[in-house]
């Protein structure tokens, strides 16, 4: 756990937010000037303002997938729109690759969007008058790439997202899942470094959603982009995220890895989300293993530290002795006893229910 955090710090921060505020209302500026740190919701209401994003700071490092999770009205989409500058933040600083995004003029902003950013929208945002190919090629053509090259590139993208054979369909002729594949292909067409996804799968049916999440993980394993992913679905966040930022009323309640959030929720609000989560499906062996004690007598079988508990639980529970945990190079890095597994899975839960 700690090692992962260190790793992230060593890599360069691609996106960096410092005390970002977004306040709606006429008195936004005066409210902001009087504020020290977090703005109180009551003060805002008294000033006739609504605070969308309240003193948010975080960093996203290269290749990291940060999920911003929150219920509707929590300010998660507003935050994303501030970082993509679809709306202008009221205060604070946002850096993309070290460049101050908020001081850019519209021309610089346009260049950044053309080269560095891609975005996927909840309701797809496809151009209804263009075919699949034309939609995917659109950001390229906007940049001034000629029709032949852009269409060729769009063909490749369509293949990448599994839309081969439907290149000449219009958006209205596609299912929701297929439309979002077009949206994904379009957002990736310019090969951006930074990928924004604003509730990309929320408008889809549960089964399709699962399929698209798998597809998304597959793409990310190939492309390794820096990603900001907004969702209101906690399970989705757990499945996809390297780190999760949980938002409530414009404030980040907790920002941590999925395992840490599940095992150690920072606030009561976060705890409510984690209660119903099936831990065996979320936690990896390394999240719950004990340090390796060479004196201890070990079982014959070994499990990978990256394995999800659910997958190997039966194996571990069948052993009387502790099971060795190995890393990718087959070195033993920890041990796990079946009683510990049971405790992790069911122990806390009964306590919570009593409390």
């Amino acid at each position, binding site marked *: 756990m700690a090692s992962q955090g260190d790793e992230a710090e060593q890599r360069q921060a691609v996106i960096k937010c410092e005390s970002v505020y977004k306040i709606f209302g006429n008195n936004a500026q005066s409210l902001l000037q009087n504020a020290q740190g977090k703005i109180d919701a009551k003060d805002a209401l008294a000033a006739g303002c609504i605070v969308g994003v309240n003193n948010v700071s975080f960093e996203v490092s290269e290749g990291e997938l940060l999920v911003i999770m929150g219920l509707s009205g929590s300010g998660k989409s507003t935050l994303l729109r501030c970082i993509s500058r679809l709306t202008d933040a009221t205060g604070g600083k946002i850096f993309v690759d070290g460049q101050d995004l908020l001081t850019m003029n519209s021309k610089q902003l*346009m260049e950044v*969007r053309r080269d560095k950013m891609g975005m996927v929208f*909840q309701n797809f*945002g496809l*151009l209804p008058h263009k075919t699949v190919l034309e939609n995917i090629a659109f*950001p390229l*053509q906007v940049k001034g790439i000629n029709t032949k090259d852009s*269409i060729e590139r769009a063909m490749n993208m369509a293949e990448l997202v599994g839309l081969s054979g439907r290149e000449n369909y219009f958006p209205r002729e596609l299912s929701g899942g297929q439309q979002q594949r077009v*949206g994904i292909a*379009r957002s990736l067409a310019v090969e951006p470094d930074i990928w924004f996804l604003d509730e990309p799968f929320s408008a889809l049916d549960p089964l399709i959603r699962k399929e698209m999440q798998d597809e998304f993980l597959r793409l990310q394993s190939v492309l390794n982009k820096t990603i900001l992913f907004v969702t209101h679905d906690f399970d989705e966040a757990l499945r996809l995220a390297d780190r999760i930022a949980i938002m409530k009323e414009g404030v980040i309640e907790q920002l941590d890895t999925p395992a840490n959030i599940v095992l150690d929720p920072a606030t009561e609000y976060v705890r409510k989300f984690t209660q119903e989560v099936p831990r065996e499906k979320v936690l990896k062996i390394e999240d719950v293993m004990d340090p390796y004690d060479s004196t201890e007598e070990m079982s014959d079988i070994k499990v990978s530290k990256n394995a999800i508990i659910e997958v190997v639980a039966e194996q571990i529970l069948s052993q009387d002795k502790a099971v060795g945990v190995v890393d990718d190079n087959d070195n033993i890095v920890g041990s796990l006893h079946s009683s510990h597994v049971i405790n992790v899975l069911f122990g806390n839960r009964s306590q919570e229910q009593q409390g």
Partner: protein
Amino acid sequence: MPSYLKSSKAIQFGVLFIAFFLLNALIGPSESNYLWRLPPLLKDIPFLINDLVRGLMFEWMPIDVYDPSIDEYEQKPLFREITRAISSSFSFVINAVREFILGGSKTIVAFSSWDFIKENPWAVWPALPWTVVVGWAMVLGYKLQGRNLAFLTGVAGLYIAAFGQWSPSMQTLSFILIAAPVSVFLGLALGVFAYKSKAVEAFLNPLLNVAQTMPHYSYLVPIIVLFGVGDHAAALVTILFATPSMVRLVLLGLKNVPTDVVDAGRMSGCNDFQMLFRVLIPTAKRDVLIGVNQVVMQCLSMTVIAAFIGAQGLGSNLLIALNSLRIGTGLEIGICIVLIAVVFDKMSLAWANKQTDYFADLSFTKRYRHFLIMAAILVGGIVMAMIGSIIFEEDFNYFYIVPHNKGLTTAPFWQAGVDWVWDTFFYTLKSFNEWLITGVLVPMRDAYLAMPVVATFLLVMGTAYILAGLRSALIVGGFLLFIAFSEYWDRALITMYMATFAVVVSGIIGITLGAACAQNTFASKAVLLFCDFLQTFPSFIYLIPVIMLFGITDTSVLIASLAFASVPATRFTVEGLRSVPPVLQDAGSMCGVSRLQRLISIEIPIAFPHIMLGVNQTVNFALMMVIIGAFIGTIDLGQLILKAISEPQGTGIGITLGVCVAFIGLAVDQIIRTWANKRKLALGLN
């Protein structure tokens, strides 16, 4: 106000009517009593407008203009120079298009001089044989949509040529080909400005409101004063009339572009230009194209009215035919206009739905196939015209240009039909006519004229207050006040009585018909299709068959208004009833309602606001038709507007009268629209 008055609309209306009739009974006609008629305080408005226009045209901002014929600089007013420049450029373009099809030498003159033409008899642009024009149009139709549209175009072309309407049709076409694109362009530009700037929108909105409800006629006089008479003036009137609906639809379309699409455009890195032309306008394409379609339809509906100020073509021929009661000819010309309208309609829609194929790797001949075919048609047509000159040596060359009124005609047949109708049903029609006039119309008109002005205000503003609230009541009062202070209150009452009659009857017809058809999916579709078809007819066309039956009387106007105004009432009723959510129908069924109960207690209450919007349009259509009816002799505002065309003070009078009519329409619109929106909100629709 006591609370029970607020609670029940029925009681409110009851009180209102009692007060209204009391006022009617108490106040008798009297010249000096302001409760009876308001003094014409605003009677100077027409003159003010006239002075303003005259000042602009002859005095304002004199500039030095070089006159080559006397080789000196002359002082000329700037505004006049501008309007002259606009006039001459429009004339030039219209003539160029016209002569490209029909031949002539005016375009060549524009680049040289009349002397040059006289000295060089060869310097005449030859007409294209009609076969070539029709052939090209068919290729265009084929390229845009396919065989069906090509066939339709061919039939239309053949009809026009065969019935000897070729030159007038092409004359009409030439000014539509100028007026429609200019209107579309202006509409797009203004719509985009209004979308970008709230201030522009707030400025344009009332102007558009008035422009859309002003009767066609009232545009004519100011245009004559500013731009003179002729095809260019006709094109300008048409543009003035056709642009507002385009602006409206462009604005509506742009506002309806989903935010996700706008954001996607921005995140793709569009600059303002790319945003507008590659994201916003294409996404709003549906509404923009409905706008284009409307523009074309408005242009065609103006063909007849534009003939009043000198547009050549089908319109002026139709006018002459109707004036001399040659109904058969009128009918044939009317069909020409409708055919052109239908072809334009289909072509613009097909053009909109075309898509590009990126994978076609075509050879030269395939890629330029259509151009090659068009070239072949040109050669073939010319050869045919030459052969024709041999065959028809003594006669007209029918393969080149079919001369006006020298083609086939079915006019005698229709004339005989009309005669037969008159012979057979003369007494029936006459007695119906007389009964309608003496039994219904005259008493109704007298009742309207016997209303004291306060009573009218009370009734209208009271209704507005009860249905739509205080704000609407005040707005409506403002509209009425303008009319009451003008000299035209009595005329306006006559217009109102005719419109009321038309609205009541066509409302009943339309709602009944609509409600009946809405019970059945097939019937609904059929009736909506039929409404579409009827709405492609320019309003003047409706006058032809009724004149056939009832001659030139108020009855004709009213019946034409009924036919014209029933269409929106029917359409909105069907749409409203069909769009009642199925879950409500099911809920009703499970409560055990009968078919009739369902209609009365579920469907009609839910659909009522939408139906009322239909009635709103019916009011506008009826007003428009009643005013057009002045052409065949009604005595209301319309007739005054028509008279104003030939008067020296016409500009001011025409505009004032037009505004009066527009205000009547806007007052009704204000009440119904506000009420319908409130009601829809209350029902949780939208």
